[in-house]
């Protein structure tokens, strides 16, 4: 009895793994999960990922973020040796803080621009009944499972990477952190910049000012550290992205990257992309997989 139940479990496990591994797409056939190892990619990007608005917003945030960090952090770490060195070409602390405020203004404009873009985009998608929670930045329980699954894959305990939508768990985490961070920075920053007006606004001005001093600096260090150590390594250093992921300029993602980390998005977009379908069928045929239709 014991042996038969064990066999049952293993078979069930294999079947599960297989149905996970092969993903059926109408008009193409069964697509193996690791097909990204066999497709061709252009480093500048093959498939659309970001609209021109998102590219502009990223550029604005990129410029203002670096300027804000370069003018803000030396003031916070004023007693360290590098602070005056960075501030000197900016004209010292008095002009650095004016640059800081102008950059902050531009960053707020970029944030509003982004908010409007997302609001209009989501509204039009909802209207056309095309909104898909899977491809949104809204975190779901699936993301937690994806993290677990992905860590198991990295450790060699899972055969393939999880199937993820347009935004994987890392991107959702980062995006939510940016929304929270921007909110904290704007509120704390305006408390520091307009102490007179904000003293009337907050119920306990002494506490609010102390909290703003603490949060503005902490959030700045946190954001800078995350961007420098994590974001930059994700887009510059990790295998497949080295030396530079061009998406932030071209708005396009490489094919192998999209299939690997945004498999469900790739499959979803495949339906409306006969050219990509044709290409995929040719790759599958070359590798000896069964395909449906498609004359190549």
């Amino acid at each position, binding site marked *: 009895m014991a042996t038969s139940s064990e066999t049952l479990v293993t078979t069930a496990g294999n079947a599960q793994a297989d149905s996970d591994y092969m993903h059926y797409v109408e008009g193409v056939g069964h697509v193996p999960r690791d097909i*990204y*190892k*066999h*497709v*061709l*990619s*252009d*480093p500048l990007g093959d498939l659309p990922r970001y609209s021109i608005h998102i590219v502009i917003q990223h550029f604005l945030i990129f410029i203002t973020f670096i300027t804000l960090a370069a003018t803000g952090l*030396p*003031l*916070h770490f*004023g*007693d360290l040796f590098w*602070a*005056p060195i960075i*501030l000197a070409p900016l004209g*010292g*602390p*008095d002009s650095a*803080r004016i640059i800081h405020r102008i950059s902050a203004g531009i960053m707020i404009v970029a944030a509003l621009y982004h908010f409007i873009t997302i609001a209009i985009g989501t509204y039009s998608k909802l209207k056309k009944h095309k909104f898909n929670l899977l491809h949104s930045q809204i975190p779901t329980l699936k993301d937690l499972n994806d993290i677990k699954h*992905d*860590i198991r*894959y*990295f*450790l*060699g305990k899972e*055969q393939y990477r999880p199937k993820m939508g347009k935004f994987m768990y*890392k991107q959702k985490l980062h995006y939510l952190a940016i929304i929270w961070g921007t909110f904290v920075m704007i509120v704390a920053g305006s408390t*520091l910049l307009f*102490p*007179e*007006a904000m*003293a*009337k606004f907050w119920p306990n*001005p*002494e*506490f609010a*000012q*102390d*909290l703003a*001093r*603490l949060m503005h600096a*902490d959030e700045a*260090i*946190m954001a800078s*550290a*995350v961007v420098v*150590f*994590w974001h930059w*390594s*994700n887009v510059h250093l*990790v*295998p*497949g992205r*080295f*030396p530079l992921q061009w998406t932030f300029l071209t708005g396009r993602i*490489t094919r*192998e990257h999209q299939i690997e980390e945004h498999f469900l998005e790739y499959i979803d977009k495949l339906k409306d992309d006969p050219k990509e379908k044709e290409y995929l069928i040719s790759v599958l045929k070359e590798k000896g997989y069964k395909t449906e239709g498609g004359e190549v």
Partner: protein
Amino acid sequence: MKHINHVRITLYFSLLFFVAVAAFATSAYAADKENCLMCHKYRFLGRIDEHGKKRNYNVDENIFNNTVHRNVPCRDCHTQIANLPHDPITEEVNCGNECHIKPPFSTENFSHKKIIQIYNKSVHGIKADDPEDLKAAKPYCKYCHLNPIFTKVEEERVASSTLRRCLNCHEEKGVSQAYKHITHRLRHKTSRSRQEIVKLCSYNCHENTALMARFNVSQESLESVETYKRSIHGKAVALGSEETADCVSCHATSSIHDVYKKDEMMSTVNERNLKRTCEQCHRDVSDEFIKIDVHSGITHDEKPFLHFLEVMLGFVLYGTIFSLLGLAVLETIGRKKDGIKWQIREGTTWRGISKRGF
């Protein structure tokens, strides 16, 4: 021959240059009516005192003639000297002396008496009931008006075209000297830079917590230098800001010497006067605004919640960075094992062979 000629011409011109410089350099005026410089002009005029310390009594004419005291005869301050050659000096100079200089539009001799009166009333003035060690620790005139600073004041001169208008009525000497005296005082409360003020107040005194603790000062006052340096005022000033508050910006009026303890009515940082003090820089100062802690130190006893938050934020920061970095490293190792290479070449990064054993 040609080469030698060049050297000669160079020598000739440099000689001419030095003569010209020397001629201008010695054109300063002296107030030495009693001819003290007859002896004190010698650079190595000095002795070894009773404690074995070398003392130098040289007065450099060129430096002295550019100081604020250039028109004051020596014996107006060094009053102990009655005959020449004089006996050893045992008394310190009294800055409250009258000197034989009459300020313009005044019939009285000039004296620092008035500011000394203000100073003596302030917290730094020596009081009769002060303990002996406190008396000894309190700063006196020369403590802040120390030589390297009071001899050489960086003066912002007005444009010569503006000065020329004064020459319609006044003598040139008077005009340039009056400007030397006045212009640097017009810019801020003091002619010193904000960095110098902070250094004067903290160095040796307010920064020395062991010394300050002996005189029964409040905890707030004990930490004042540290909390100031952590505030935005302190950080900006330390980096060279000229727009932010230094010590005397808030703790004294324009007479600078009237520093009082916070709970005294005369103090600029007394609750009654705080609004007016902040208004020197801040607009729309309200009752709520003056509640903001300027010397804010976040400690466990004073601000337990903020202290807790600060500690927790530290944990969150390091926790986030290290877990994210860990994830990136894990991801890289895992994918490398699955056969990925660093760079896209010939259309793919997956050029390796998976070593994962599936």
